[in-house]
């Protein structure tokens, strides 16, 4: 089933873990890279709030300390997303996904708004509970096929992964912010600091796109 996405263009070895680029993962990788670059380069916007019932409006400013921290988290999130895009190993992929979850919490946790913090907490709890389906899925893959390599599983040299493992992996990634488990995420986006908040959205979409590919090929 490897022809779903084209043959790998380029592989990079880290011992028993491969990093590989197919046309599909490479384009996702480039997009993550592009948005990380935007995060590095751009300053946050100043959100304009309207005071209802009056003509007054004011722009919120983000403090330098908060800005630095959130930018750091967004860059970490971008790197984690890039890693998840190109990782050729199921367990490594789930670890990158967990890292994406933590950094997403970090991006919004620093915002001084009770509403946003609450949403971040709920999201964080779901992300942490999502580690069971993620790691469980990866463990079932290795137990039932004897390998974690996506390329091996896709190449047909190993027996196919059981449906249970695939379903667990997908559910775990969906917990990181896909429909219908994204209500908290939508609220997190009300936080100021567009370039950073966008990384939350981008990362969860990208890891979802990747898990679909993984589940289809293994």
């Amino acid at each position, binding site marked *: 089933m490897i022809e779903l996405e084209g043959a790998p263009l380029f592989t990079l070895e880290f011992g*028993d*873990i491969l990093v590989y680029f197919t046309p599909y993962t490479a384009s996702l990788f480039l997009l993550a890279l592009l948005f990380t670059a935007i995060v590095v380069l751009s300053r946050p916007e100043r959100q304009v709030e309207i005071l209802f019932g009056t003509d007054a409006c004011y722009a919120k400013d983000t403090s330098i300390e908060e800005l630095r921290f959130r930018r750091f988290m967004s860059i970490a999130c971008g790197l984690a997303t890039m890693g998840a895009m190109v990782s050729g190993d199921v367990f490594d992929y789930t*670890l990158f996904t967990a890292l994406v979850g933590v950094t997403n919490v970090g991006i919004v946790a620093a915002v001084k708004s009770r509403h946003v913090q609450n949403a971040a907490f709920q999201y964080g709890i779901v992300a942490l*509970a999502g580690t069971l389906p993620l790691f469980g899925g990866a463990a*079932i893959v290795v137990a039932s*096929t004897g390998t974690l390599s996506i390329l091996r599983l896709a190449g047909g040299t190993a027996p196919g992964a*059981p449906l249970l493992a695939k379903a667990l992996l997908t559910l775990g990634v969906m*917990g990181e912010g896909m429909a*219908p488990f994204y209500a908290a995420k939508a609220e997190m986006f009300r936080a100021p600091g567009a370039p950073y908040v966008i990384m939350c959205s981008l990362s969860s979409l990208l890891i979802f796109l990747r898990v679909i590919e993984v589940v289809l090929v293994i």
Partner: protein
Amino acid sequence: MIISRISRIISNYGNLMPLFAFACAVLCLLGILMLPVSYHEDQLYRKTQNPDSPLDPYERGGRPLERANITLQYPENSPYAGYVTAYLTPLSLYLASSTLYLGTTIVAHPGGILDEILYNTRGLDTVVESSILFVAFAIGSFIFRRR
């Protein structure tokens, strides 16, 4: 209408965790029904036991920088992958020769038991893992310190 009732539930993020937990519970239940999942016998890094060795239960033999006969995902990429006990530092070697219980006590010694997997074959995992720790503690201490 049923649709607006469902949408009211999913729009409240307080319901997020119950929703996800319910989905997980259903999936795990289905998983139990899907059993048995067969266990693949030809696993990566199988365990072997050698009760006489001071490194038990981690005695796997082997020498550094020598390819050993173990199952790997990409044998061609790991010309040096040895047994897991391949990397013993002088201190560990000394301890192993003087006591019988190195394996059960000094399990994570540098150059100790699992380092072959943790640092070499699956090193990228450990990089990501320590990054997770780093990031989460950064969040914790940032929130803690900010007044």
